[in-house]
């Protein structure tokens, strides 16, 4: 059976948008790790070289992160990671990436598979909640996180640093 053209188009659009959002999620994580002590405190506890993969679905776009010298860097090569989040389908991952589903809710609803130590995943969840707080406007964030942390710098500064990558 062939996939309908409509489904194919929607799929390709979602793949494209997911790739863009994952890129900004990486930049956001990297910047917020520098700006926000709570995130820095979390990542400081990760072992050097700790790797994380967020995969939108099997064969879908993915983001590979690594802790290196207390910074978050992006990896290009596929490899076995210490912690892997693999969504069951792209549509669910898309909900999360477009600010319509929080990471905690996604976990509770079994929306993704989690490979690795669940205790370590709790630290990543706290980081992603804060990163989302910086990246999404408040009216969206209030639906995504249980508690909105006060921002150390205005969102606009974060956006500029994310865009210009510094």
């Amino acid at each position, binding site marked *: 059976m062939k996939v309908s053209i409509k489904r194919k188009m929607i799929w390709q659009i979602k793949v494209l948008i997911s790739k863009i959002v994952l890129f900004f999620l990486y930049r956001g994580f990297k910047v917020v790790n520098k700006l926000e002590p709570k995130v820095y405190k979390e990542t400081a506890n990760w072992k050097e070289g700790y790797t994380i993969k967020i995969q939108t679905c099997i064969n879908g776009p993915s983001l590979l992160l690594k802790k290196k010298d207390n910074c978050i860097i992006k990896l290009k090569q596929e490899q076995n990671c210490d912690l*892997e989040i693999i969504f069951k389908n792209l549509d669910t991952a898309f909900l999360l990436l477009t600010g319509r589903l929080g990471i*905690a*809710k996604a*976990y*509770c*609803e*079994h*929306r993704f*598979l*989690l*490979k*690795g*130590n*669940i*205790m*370590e*995943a*709790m*630290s990543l*969840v*706290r980081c992603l909640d804060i990163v989302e707080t910086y990246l999404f406007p408040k009216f969206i964030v209030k639906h995504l*996180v*249980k*508690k909105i942390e006060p921002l150390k710098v205005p969102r606009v500064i974060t956006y500029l640093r994310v865009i210009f990558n510094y």
Partner: protein
Amino acid sequence: MIPNYYEFQNTTKIISGEFSINNIPAELRFFNSNSPLLISDEILKKIGTVSKIEDAIHTDDSVTIKAEFTEVPPDSDLAIINKLAKLYKEHNCDSIIAVGGGSVIDTAKGLRMLISQDEEDINKLMGNEILKYGKHIPFIVIPTTAGTGSEVTLVAVIEDKFRNLKMEFISYFLLPDVAIIDPQMTMTLPKKATASTGIDALCHAIEAYSCMQNNPISDAYATTAIKLIKENIEDAVQNGSNKKVRLEMANASLMAGIAFSNSMVGLVHAIAHSLGAVCHVPHGDAVAIMLPYVMEYNLDILDNKYAELLSYFVSAEDYMNTQKEQRGKRTIKEVKRLLMKLNKIAGLPINLRDVNVKEENLTKIAQIAINDGAIIVNPKAADEKDIIEILKMAY
């Protein structure tokens, strides 16, 4: 109300009733198995519980216990699981029977996972829903406490003492094939253990009903469990030889297990696990101490959910006479009242001092609790400071 999305699964066959352990051979035959490995602990061997199972199996000629291991420690241990895997293969066993509480059942789940996945490095299996359907190993569980609900849950926690690491495995493929609930299996449970395991089951039901992934199916199990526990726990403590009461409590524990296996548990369990890890507080005691304080902490978010639960704690008339905005608080009051009664009749601890927790350990307990997998399911955020405050209240 139907949530936007939920998942629910319980594939375990449940056999409940007096003498249901005599069905073990028949159940094994359904799976074409006749050579089980029996797993239990030393206490159950000593008090004769294991011999009841042996009798039930050997009365039937078609099944022979090929190997027996009754040295499972209070916390399931990776080294023991590796030893059991060797034993299983050496004796050509074809199925597993677990007789015991949470640690025995978790050990058996770990063994089954290792054999069925044909994986030597258990670390590769750690996580949430990453197991694939492997080789089917028939697995029968006979719980001897009415609290953990492990006989119907998709979770196994295994300790790697060598690396000082608690490994958590969550998968629908961890669900046993058959759970046998026989009242004679819990008859020997002492008063205090009956009280604390019963409150553990109550907490499973309350947290499953009120946490972030509750759904109408798990709610039905959770509320039935609460009703059964409220009606039977005092009787079970005071009159442990009453088979009807024991059967109702065992069923309540099983139903709470089904509820939380699908809806998960929250902050009470996150803190209780940590109290166990840092101060070696028995799990049921830790849950009993923390339950009302965490309910108070969650009240502003969960007022409506707790209010709904009041009808299972008081009479219909009393429920109607309680003002709507007071019902959530009243539920907590009723939980406290129940705990106080159990404190009087069974010595159930009600604060952290009762279980010798040192005040200087509270920070460490909170630090571990925030990384527990259960914390993410709690509808109200809780950081290290919040947990320290809750612990101080419970001190």
